[in-house]
């Protein structure tokens, strides 16, 4: 076997061996998660000892279901809160959704005029139960 051949053989060995180790670690990790109750797993606490205290927040948002005026809803409403807050609401009447949107406008100053208000309520009613 040529010198280059041996090196290639070693390289392939290292790659497959590494993949094997990673895969073994992966099965061990998921096995641990399934066996222990979440209560038993220690959760490392972010430090609050330094001069600067900060947290990296998760920011994945559920996608908004397709429906009429989806973009208008997205622009007007998700500036101040996640899509999650809306998608976790119970089935509400048109009057209840209208009151909610009007509260956002009157109390919090959401940039929504009366036409947009109707469009947003229509979207909220359309996506309920999806």
């Amino acid at each position, binding site marked *: 076997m040529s010198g*280059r051949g041996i090196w*290639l053989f070693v390289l392939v060995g290292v*790659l497959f061996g590494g*993949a094997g180790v990673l895969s073994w670690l992966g099965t061990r990790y998921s096995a641990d998660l399934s066996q222990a*109750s*979440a*209560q038993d*797993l220690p*959760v*490392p*606490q*972010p430090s*609050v*000892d*330094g*001069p*600067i*205290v*900060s*947290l*990296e*927040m*998760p*920011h*994945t*948002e*559920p*996608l908004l279901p397709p429906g009429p005026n989806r973009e208008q809803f997205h622009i007007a409403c998700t*500036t*101040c*809160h*996640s*899509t*999650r*807050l809306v*998608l*976790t*609401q*119970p*089935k*509400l009447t048109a009057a*209840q*959704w209208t*009151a*909610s949107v009007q509260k956002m406008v009157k*109390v*919090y*100053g*959401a*940039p929504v005029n009366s036409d947009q208000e109707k469009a947003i309520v229509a979207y909220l009613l359309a996506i309920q139960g999806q």
Partner: protein
Amino acid sequence: MSDPIHVQLTRRAWLAGVGLAGLVGCGRNQPTVESLPADAPLRFPGKVPMRALNHRPPCLETPWRYFQTDLTPNEAFYVRWHLQVLPNPIDVPSWRLRVDGHVERPAAFSLDELRRMPAEEVIAVNQCSGNSRGLFQPALPGAQWHNGAMGNARWRGVPLRHLLERVGLKAGSVEVAFEGMDRGGLPSVPNFVKSLPVDRARDREILVAYSMNDAPLPLLHGFPVRLVVPGWYATYWVKSLESITVLTGPCDNFWMKTAYRIPTTANAVEKPDQLAKVTVPIHRMNVRSFFTLPETLSPQVGKPVELNGIAFDGGSGIARVEVSTDGGTTWQAGELGPDLGRFSFRRWYWTWTPQAVGEQRLLVRATSTTGETQPLTEGWNRAGYMRNVIEAVRLEVRA
């Protein structure tokens, strides 16, 4: 000379490509975020995975199994913020708690100064006004909490009364207002400011707390300091305090005048088609009790099994907890566990010997030392506050 290198790179690129393709392929078969329920558990830094009703700002519910201990661990304690711009990061050396308004000597305290002041501790339940809102019928808009928007912790900090004495209240002080550092997504969103009547603010159990369950207050729970108002709903426990202002009149912002108000009727009950005309700011918690049973519990007919749970109220303390196996016709007294103070969860125990096989429905009811107890049917109000209906649990009894 370039050929061998070229070959090697290509092989590496090919191997990397295969690996990447494998990863992408695996990813296709995994559930994606958008396929999960909207309230699927999320993991925040320092927290266990928690039911998320919102994450911007975070509203996270304590998983029920964590109520099997008297103190709720910080990592599982529920989280509820109002405004989406959290104080993050916080520059501790430049942070000050301002105490001013209608006072003789306005002051500002650093975290180190607060930590060096005489400290006190209290074990107290922190419960969201809207805890259990998601269980109301007819359904109500708002955060759809189940029963886990509450927790019990040991809080340590400076008594508010001490700070008020340091600055000296002037004659004619009516309320004390507390402002958090969180901000809305638009400048028009009103800052989160809550107020207490001046006499309530002077109560000795109220703390400006920097410690929770013997650990520094986590950022998600209001680092550097938060208000602790034992016995009152969590809306007053303002997180990440930046100012305390003594007022000569009532605080009339949105958070006091419009939000967090209850009917003046008994237990804040009203009817959807007959809303109460007079409302007041929500304040003292009503009495509640719960089962906190292990998920593995498997009762057997004729075999005694010890059940347990928690009870609490707005600070008078729990006098008794009773269990009913016949839908509330008769009640049997349970035993109370250690008394951790009148603001704490009180553990209760009751030994049950099931008499029949199949599904059995058990009820639990607490009574406070002032004689206040829980209703058998749910009381409703427009905002979904103060739910304290008698809780039921269904258990499958095996032969």
